[in-house]
């Protein structure tokens, strides 16, 4: 049909926005370098944490007294060694694993504990945000209009509620993640988290504290890791919020 084939050109001429909401979001994200970099960095961190057992060149808990506090760039230890001569790269990779499961550090490692602690601390907050967003959207007239047109609850949730509620929830959840990373690192820095010799960024920061005058760079590494990870989460959630925003 002539009308349909002429459509895309006319749309471009009118400067109309792309077709679906989620495609608009993706389109905006693709044009936001800061968010893309943060996302990529985060992906890299998560991936390396997941693959730590295969990526780490050494056992994170096995050290050698002879090689204590080797500087960054030392032969065989790219990122140096800590105060007990353990490979920093391996420990950072393994530590990322620990930190990313966040609050589990407070209860000790293990999957059940991780799940329990994450649920207790973060689910209520996210649920509260989800609830208030839903209540607010639910009372709007376009929901009533959808009901008036005969739509059932599933159709209304899928087409009208979710897209308007998911944005705030996602943004809030991602800020909570960066918060939880700092929280977990902070707890183990104070000795309330994992027990040595387990590798965890906060704990590493604490134990390397005394070595700061011997080798300044190596103790800074776990701090840098914490900083970069939580910044990446913050940037990502900022970018998501911007991309999902639609003026009403």
């Amino acid at each position, binding site marked *: 049909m002539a009308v349909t084939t002429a*459509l895309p050109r006319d749309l471009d001429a009118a400067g109309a926005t792309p077709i679906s909401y989620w495609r608009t979001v993706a389109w905006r994200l693709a044009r936001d370098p800061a968010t893309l970099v943060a996302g990529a960095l985060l992906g890299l961190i998560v991936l390396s944490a997941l693959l730590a057992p295969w990526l780490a060149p050494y056992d994170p808990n096995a050290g050698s007294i002879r090689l204590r506090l080797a500087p960054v760039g030392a032969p065989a230890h790219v990122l140096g060694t800590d105060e007990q001569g353990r490979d920093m790269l391996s420990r950072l990779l393994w530590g990322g694993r620990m930190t990313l499961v966040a609050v589990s550090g407070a209860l000790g490692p293990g999957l059940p504990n991780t799940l329990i602690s994450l649920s207790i601390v973060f689910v209520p907050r996210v649920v509260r945000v989800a609830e208030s967003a839903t209540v607010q959207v639910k009372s709007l007239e376009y929901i009533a209009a*959808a009901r008036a047109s005969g739509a059932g609850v599933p159709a209304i949730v899928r087409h009208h509620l979710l897209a308007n509620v998911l944005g705030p929830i996602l943004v809030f959840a991602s800020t909570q993640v960066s918060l939880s990373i700092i929280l977990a690192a902070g707890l183990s820095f104070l000795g309330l988290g994992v027990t040595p010799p387990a590798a965890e960024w906060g704990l590493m920061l604490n134990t390397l504290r005394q070595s700061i005058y011997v080798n300044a760079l190596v103790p800074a590494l776990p701090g840098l890791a914490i900083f970069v990870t939580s910044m990446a989460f913050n940037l990502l959630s900022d970018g998501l919020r911007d991309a999902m925003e639609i003026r009403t």
Partner: protein
Amino acid sequence: MSAAPLLEVRGLRKHFPLRSGVLQRTHAWVRAVDGVSFDVYPAETLGIVGESGCGKSTLARLILRLIEPDAGSVRFAGEDVRGASADRMKRLRRDMQLVFQDPHASLNPRLTIEDAVAFSLLVHGTSRAVARERARALLGRVGLEARLYGRRYPHELSGGQRQRVNIARALVLDPRLLVLDEPASALDKSVQAQVLNLLADLKAERALTYVFISHDLNVIEYVSSRVLVMYLGEIVETGTADALAQAPKHPYTQALFASAPSLDPDRRLERPPLSGDPPNPIDPPSGCRFRTRCAFAMPRCAETPPALRAVGEAHDVACYLYEREAIVGAPTG
């Protein structure tokens, strides 16, 4: 009017509970709509007028069963709306549609207007292609060329354009009855006129029946064939638009007409005909609810509420001032 009514509303009542405290105990009731009865005949426009908070919007939602009434019945084309099963209700909804007041809150910000209009059809099982085609045609009809506007989001449109989208969405299901809840109140005067004219054209084209709700008497007078005046959840007067404009009976209707702005200096008033706000619908006055603001209030007005009585052909009023007249005019004496 001898034809069978399209919509019959009988004794409709909705009281909203006001809850407070930890136990959410009900401590008061808002009497939003209190025993309202009227008929709407095919192809007419029934105007419903009243101040803010008199229950007009609640009434609209009750008619469409977006909220459940406490008592009373609504029949559409002879069919009981209140008792309809879910299946039956879904089919009934095709025949009765609502246009909302707020053009900003009534469109999903994350749907293009084409999708917003097509959605209603998809709900009723129309194929995506057909739904889209019909949505585009209807958008064109309300003055939003689909090629230019169809893929836009509501925030890219003006208030008047959004209200056109709302009208298209309501019409896409080919309803017989359109309830318009202050469809033009949020718009500029010039845009308001465009939307009202569009509604008039659509009504003629599609043989629609309108229930037109507004607080603006000028608008009501312009669009309606028959008018129903509401005060605090009750009907105080009904009649043809002409009869009401020429000889309003109820003191409240008189005050409403007197307070409508006029370009004629002779019709201008020195002081406002109505003072103060309407009483709180949580605890309305006893007897006639208007008596606290009425210049003609008598002792008996506080006792029992006056019933609607005929004062002319198809002209009813609920006021004791016209009781004698009504008895004279009534067939049985």
